[in-house]
């Protein structure tokens, strides 16, 4: 559009892309976890992210305490909500055809969004805590995005450490490789499902809390995150946990790069084009996942 693209702009875009990507990776890891363990795509994942974001909003609004500390509230709360949803509803459709689990989580999602609309109204809300940016040479780094990035990286690394090193984490990975074999080895798969849904919801909640500090939130914000998280796990290969990290970074980069050439409105659609292209060209994901 007649705008010359300087190296500084490219640098800016690459860094913004990575900053956004870390958040996508963290949220998508949650979705990947549920899918890996139960073969359920949780349409309500973004909805839980939205509830996490509202937890942060109210925390800051009512208590006036540093919003980043609200992670200590939103993550456990959504962990509990996740466990509750799994225990009461989702567990009944784990082995049913995927039509059932898709529709069930869809139903949960629209009910929760409506509850949020009724209790919090549909107004845009924002947490005005950290505004402004650090200037590093020609590149401006938004403070809130930088801090969110740091939190997302730490939380994601903790989640990976947990999956790799702890006994429960190993049990989760075993279940996602094969729930039958895991059961034979004495792993209580029902319990693992509960933990997986809880942890996944906590990761989504963390994403919501961090998003709330960056942009204005509203009850219907979640759907976009469900979609993007799914795109991330498609990019990385479904059921491939490290793939989710790569996919998130890639999505962040592509979105930001496209904003160089397109208006922000249209760059929303870029994620979609990316999904269709990947499904056409490399349906098992970039790292190659388990065949579905």
């Amino acid at each position, binding site marked *: 559009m007649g705008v010359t693209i300087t190296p500084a702009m490219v640098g800016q875009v690459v860094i913004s892309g990575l900053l956004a990507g870390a958040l996508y990776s963290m949220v998508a890891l949650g979705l990947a976890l549920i899918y890996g363990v139960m073969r359920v795509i949780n349409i309500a994942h973004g909805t839980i992210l939205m509830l996490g974001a509202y937890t942060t909003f109210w925390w800051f609004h009512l208590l006036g305490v540093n919003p980043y500390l609200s992670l200590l509230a939103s993550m456990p709360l959504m962990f509990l909500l996740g466990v509750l949803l799994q225990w009461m509803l989702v567990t009944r459709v784990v082995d049913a055809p995927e039509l059932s689990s898709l529709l069930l989580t869809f139903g949960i999602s629209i009910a929760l969004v409506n509850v949020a609309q009724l209790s919090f109204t549909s107004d845009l809300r924002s947490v005005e805590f950290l505004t402004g940016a650090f200037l590093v040479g020609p590149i401006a780094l938004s403070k809130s995005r930088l801090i969110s990035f740091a939190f997302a990286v730490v939380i994601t690394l903790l989640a990976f450490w947990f999956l790799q090193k702890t006994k429960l984490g190993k049990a989760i990975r075993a279940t996602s490789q094969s729930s039958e074999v895991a059961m034979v080895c004495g792993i209580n798969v029902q319990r693992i499902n509960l933990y997986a849904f809880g942890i996944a919801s906590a990761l989504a909640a963390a994403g919501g809390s961090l998003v709330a500090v960056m942009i204005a939130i509203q009850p219907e914000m979640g759907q976009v995150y*469900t*979609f993007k998280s*799914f795109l991330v796990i498609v990019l990385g290969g479904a059921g491939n946990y490290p793939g989710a990290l790569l996919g998130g970074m890639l999505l962040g980069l592509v979105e930001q790069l496209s904003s160089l050439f397109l208006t922000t409105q249209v760059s929303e659609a870029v994620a979609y084009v990316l999904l269709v292209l990947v499904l056409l060209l490399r349906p098992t994901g970039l790292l190659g996942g388990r065949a579905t």
Partner: protein
Amino acid sequence: MRWAFLVALVGGLLLLALYPMVATGYGIQFMLQLFMWVALAQSWNLVSGLTGYVSFGHVAFFGTGAYAGAILVTTHGWHWGPASLAAGVAAVILALIIGYPCLRLKGPYFAIAMLGLNEVMRVLVSYFEGLTGGGSGLSLPTLHASGQIYYAMGLAAIAVTAAAYLIITSRFGLRLMTIREDEIAAEAMGIDTARYKLYAFLLSAFVPGVVGGLFARDQGYIEPISVFALLTTITMIVMALFGGKGTIWGPVLGAVTLFVFQELVWARFLYLHQILFGAIIVFVVLLMPRGILGVLQERYRLPRTL
């Protein structure tokens, strides 16, 4: 039994055909919308009820049709009849673009791709302002044709229900239902699953496009948020599920029951609308997976193809 049913059916259709002579303006609008929901719920049923591939974005075809029809009417001066048919074709083309990559794969790829589609279409329609009027919408020239649109909408509902009947009682329908029950077994039996899924999907996109075109003409004004509303998809799904997905009369039953209920009762509790819909979905999936019709079939030994 069969005769009684046919007589009732023909009689009912005849009454509906004569209804505009005695109806008030409100009555016509009410029935017109009822037909619209029957057509939409039944269209969703054609792909999701029969193949088990859930479409979370069927409103995208409705919206695309609404815009295609409205643009043809306003800028090219078409009559609304051919414009609505062209709107159906536009929806089918969109379905081809999305369905071809997504339906070759198994699993939830399709569902999620459809979840995003609506959002993308809304963004694109808002972006191409020159053609669509952008966020401020598109007004159609005034025309009082509710009476004619009533018949057109009714025909759309009948056509898609007849299509459901023809499909469910044919080999094509059996193939689709085999895919739903066990896709690997279907492939092993030599069914070209990707092709049949795509056919079902294209069929299910046509009528929402047509209905969208008619809706645009009837309302006289459309904007991105009104024709690409997520609630429309939700409503279609709830109606088809509630009545009984994968059956001929289930979506009709669901659409009529829920629409009448909605007009009589829920209009007063508009805020609770989506909670109710969410609860119905959860309830149906867990406790009544085959909908009202499924329950009736079990209790009264009704035929399978109903």
